[in-house]
């Protein structure tokens, strides 16, 4: 292709800028809002130039929300911590359960195998609200309401199917003969799994883990119903910014920036694996 024409280059630059603005604008706008006070944000017309303030971040980190009606205690940092604990625990657990299961589904044909795999996947297309009511009743009976364990268990419904189905594809792409060769060389079945299959599916496992972490992190409705204040993740905690004296836009923006940060950093770190994992699954001869 020849892009050397001046017109072509200009057009390409314009098109790229448009796409960039389209995708980046909300993020940039939120970032700007997070450095403004509520009054500055609500000014009409909005201004691009303003005096930045760190008051929003200060309020979030110190846990003191100053509103027109007075000081309000918020536990944003606690929420952030909860989000982190809940999502990582759910992903770790889902990896421990899902990776061996994915391997089993990929390598062995057994009775009801496809049915089980599909049932697990179907958790992803059932609306959460459908299961939520019965689930909260069960949880109250079992005493799992408002426990980390209980919420992590529900988060499995989000993480496990994703991991299972993505990782299964990677295992299927690895020639079983590589493991066979390793086993013939004097290694057990278990060693072939941990030393050959898992490392080879590594990029896929990383991609699946990251994706399911993001899904868990973004979950709202399970935590809203099943967790009380001190166990709530950021998604639910953000409701606290809708106060009696109005919506605290500045703090919400700052909260969004802070809550996006961990997943963003994780994604940037894992990007290498992600690209490799999503584009280059196969180990071809």
């Amino acid at each position, binding site marked *: 292709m020849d892009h050397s024409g001046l017109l072509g280059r200009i057009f390409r630059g314009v098109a790229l800028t448009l796409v960039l603005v389209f995708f980046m604008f909300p993020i940039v706008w939120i970032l700007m809002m997070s450095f403004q006070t509520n009054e500055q944000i609500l000014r009409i017309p909005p201004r691009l130039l303003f005096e930045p303030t760190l008051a929003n971040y200060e309020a979030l980190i110190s846990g003191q929300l100053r509103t027109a009606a007075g000081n309000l205690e918020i536990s944003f940092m606690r929420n952030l911590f909860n989000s982190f604990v809940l999502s990582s625990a759910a992903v770790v657990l889902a990896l421990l359960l899902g990776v061996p299961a994915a391997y089993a589904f990929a390598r062995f044909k057994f009775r009801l195998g496809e049915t089980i795999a599909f049932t697990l996947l179907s958790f992803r297309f059932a609306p959460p609200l459908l299961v939520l009511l019965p689930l909260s009743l069960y949880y109250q009976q079992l005493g799992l309401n408002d426990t980390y364990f209980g919420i992590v268990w529900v988060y499995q419904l989000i993480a496990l199917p994703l991991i299972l189905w993505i990782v299964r594809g990677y295992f299927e792409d690895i020639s079983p003969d590589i493991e066979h060769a390793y086993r*013939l060389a004097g290694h057990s079945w278990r060693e072939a799994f941990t030393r050959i299959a898992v490392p080879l599916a590594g990029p896929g496992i990383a991609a699946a883990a990251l994706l399911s972490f993001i899904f868990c992190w973004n979950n709202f409705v399970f935590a809203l119903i099943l967790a009380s204040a001190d166990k709530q993740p950021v998604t639910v905690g953000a409701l606290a910014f809708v106060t009696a004296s109005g919506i605290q836009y500045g703090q919400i923006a700052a909260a969004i920036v802070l809550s996006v940060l961990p997943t963003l950093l994780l994604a940037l770190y894992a990007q290498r694996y992600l690209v490799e994992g999503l584009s280059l699954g196969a180990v071809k*001869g």
Partner: protein
Amino acid sequence: MGMLELRNVDKVYGSRGKPPVHAVRALDMDVPSGEIVALLGSSGCGKTSTLRMIAGFEEVTSGSIALGRRQIHRLPPAQRKVAMAFEGYSLYPPLTVRENIAFALKAQQLPRSEVTRRVDAIARLVEIDDILDSYPRAISGGQQQRVSLARALVRDADLYLLDEPMGQLEPQLRAVLRGRIKGLLAERGMTAIFVTHDQAEASALADRIAVMEDGILQQFASEKDLKNHPANLFVASFIGEPPMNLLQAEVARNDGGFGLSVGPDLVFQIRGDTLDKAAQKELEGSARLTVGIRPQKVAVGSGDVRLRVVSNQWLGDQSHIAGECAGKLLIAVTPQRIAARPDDVVPFAMESRHLHIFAGDGTCIHHAEAA
């Protein structure tokens, strides 16, 4: 080292909603220590299933496998003392060629200098010593195949299984490696089974060839025996290039023995005393049966039967002539160059002593005189 015994081995693949596939049927095979055996057959004949059952990646449905007096068919692959080169190479991508070849030796905890020495030696043998530090991704298919072969041959095992070990190699290299690998196997007294669909490779490398079809072992014999004494129609038509001419013949009893008439001008007279009892009985009992003759035994240029030429190819050292006679297509191979064009009529002759005779069930009841 040990001898391999397969006893009544069956393999049935069952899958839900489909009829089960009987891949290997009642397979009996004895491979003495130090013998090189080729499993030859078309694809889907059960040869790879057999290999995988010996290696332990497929369970036997019934029957038993013993290697050096140990029953191995219930053991995990790691304990069978079997080395295998896979058709798909199956090299471990994160390891270099050297590490790939060495990993079985490392698992045996051999000293480092010994590992290096053995890897270097086998790498020279299969001519990959210049790529030992490359990764599998960076080398060609033919090179990967040789690495896979080296990884199997470098080990100390009771049995070496090679699945299409040279399919990807260039003809010249293939010829060289065949010789070297045969030398290595013989020198170290290694027992080996390799799967191939290339008759030339089977003949060059193997002491004996097991011909399989439809999961059944058709014949297990030397290349010469397969050619001269095919057990049945399948082996007769499968072994040899071009394949044996097979013709339907009417049987008629006469004074000297039997007349086998393929067409009006084409009658073979078989003397009764050249046949054994069973063959005589079979001939007496049948009205029609199949006779076979190798294309090399069809003499073109003289004789009293006429052949209408369909095609004539000179291959540089022999002519392949296909022709029609009494409505039957015949192939003839002669070392002379024959000047005949399609639709020309040439004389040819076939002698009764070169006939193989097959009973109705395909079994060969009478073999041609050995060349």
